[in-house]
């Protein structure tokens, strides 16, 4: 099987751009990232399909001239799924905007809790501040 270098490079660029956008906070940008990335992935399937050829219709074109139809069918399914995903993400972003006035993905509860504890400089009740001296003699802070 021979693949097209141009298509592979285009797919790489699109996926890289998509991943960069996915690291953003705003859901709208994440959505754009998903769309760009899914186009990149679809192009990867075209690479897998091999060089372009005649439409895959039996008894109309010689079989060895046809393009492989299976990756194209998979791309079609993937496009439909991406469309549904975009619709859902748009809905979530809109609802988030209604509720919070922005559409940013917030930190998870655990991270927030740990950060609050760190800011308050909280320690547990059983914590003892023990320093070790170089002389081998332990000193306990009062």
């Amino acid at each position, binding site marked *: *099987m021979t*693949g097209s270098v141009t298509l592979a490079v285009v797919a790489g660029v699109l*996926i890289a751009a*998509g991943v960069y956008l*996915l690291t953003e906070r705003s*859901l709208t940008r*994440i959505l754009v990232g*998903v769309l760009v*990335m*899914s186009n990149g*992935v679809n192009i*990867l*399937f075209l*690479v*897998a399909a091999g060089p372009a050829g005649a439409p895959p219709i039996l008894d109309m074109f010689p079989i060895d001239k046809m393009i492989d139809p*299976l*990756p194209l069918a*998979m791309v079609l*399914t*993937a496009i439909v*799924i991406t469309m*549904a*995903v975009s619709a*859902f*993400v748009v809905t*979530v*972003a809109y*609802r*988030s905007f209604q*509720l*919070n006035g922005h559409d940013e*993905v*917030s930190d*998870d*509860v*655990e991270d927030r809790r740990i950060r609050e504890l760190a800011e308050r400089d909280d320690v547990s009740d059983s914590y003892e501040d023990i320093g070790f001296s170089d002389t081998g003699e332990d000193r306990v802070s009062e």
Partner: protein
Amino acid sequence: MNNLLPVPVLLPMLGAALALMLGRRPRAQRLVSILVLAGVVGVAGTLALQANAFGPQTLWVGAWPQGFGIVLVADRLSALMLTVAALVTLAVLLYSAGQEDDEVKRETPVSIFHPTFLLMCAGVSDAFLAGDLFNLFVGFEILLFASYVLLTMGGTGSRIRAGSIYVVVNLVSSSLFLIALANVYAAVGTVNLAQIAQRVPDLPEGTQALLQFMLLIVFAIKAAVFPLSAWLPDSYPTAPAPVTAVFAGLLTKVGVYAILRTQTLIFPHRPLTELLLVVAAATMIVGILGAIAQSEIKRMLSFTLVSHIGYMIMGIGLATQAGLAGAIFYTAHHITIQATLFLVVGLIQRVGGSNSLDRLSGLLITSPLLAVLFIVPGMNLAGIPPLSGFIGKLGLLSAGVQVGTPLAWFLVATSVVTSLLTLYCIAKVWNRAFWGTPVAYSKAVADEDEEEPLGRSEGPMPPIMVAATCGLIGLSLLLTVFAGPLYQYATEAAGSLLDGAYVQAVLGEATP
């Protein structure tokens, strides 16, 4: 040829359509979904018996010549998973039927719970039965879409926050899955699992490794294996109890199943033993340490869920028949037990008005029945003999000892420590929520807590919810009583994973 195979996928889909039409008649809707899932249980049980007696059952959908079409396969492993999954979803549905009168309806004006739930069941069945990678992808997408809707149902602030993280993580893993699929197709020219299995050994070493790692990472995200598990404890606890129960029971296990299937079928000649064992140990320890630090029961259980995924990965990593059998048995056990515990937490929240350990006290006096309902699955999760959790862990431990490498021994030690720490978590809940003097539930205090999910209702436990929970506990006890034959079944399932019966069954029929 077995025409029963598409039924577990088609029946819930048709049921979902019917349930959507009956949206204004809750009773009829409930009846439809319960009947549909009962039907799926029957079909799945039949498939399991057939797969056990006659070997893997296959169906080429549309009867295309020479294996061009889509193939559905039910071998012992997928039929067992299908049966357990159907039983658990049925119980969860009954539970939610008892709950929805006051709770779900207030949050969702149009009754979309049942259609979405049924669609999720269809997706889970499709993922278990799929005989090619692309169909597996489609099955995953169906169940993920339904889960997005279930997770953000009602659109409250905390659910949208949790849902957006969940959606983004799953989008990334789905895109990775598609990239892996494109690479597989480019490398071997097919997406049929059995054909891939035949052609992969001829590929260059580097290509094989690339495909194996990509597929592993994709499914590890879905299964919440340690470095890729951070999304889970954050997104699951905000959903309503039945939703969390079915997510915790099933969705991660579909990921585990996919790892089990792809690693044993496509790459049996190069098991990733070291990598998987290290990852399994990390998953167990990090998960359970996270659980210890939590003060909300739902969050704590989400962390134990991550932790116990490690046991299944350990079984897959050992890659011997005993190890795989342990993993299969443990997966079946864990689906039931984790779902049960989340249902019980739903009841705790109802009786005590909260799922935070700081607020609960003296539930043993308020509701002794609830205490029994909690302690039995709790002990089972921790692996107290003679319950099924103990049998599964024992199987994995002895498999680890048989392998006997230093790493395997380390895993044996880690899993013992993890189950002790699980016991500590359960005991902590028992001490703080069930012992002590009962506190009156105060609405004012609950309102101060912003993380508390909305739409909660307190009051006595409806009998249907209790009955459904009891049913699941009964199922987990049955796993204990019939552990002998079940373990035998799991061992045979593991045997047929290793002896290539799958490839023979799929391709033997395609090329007569």
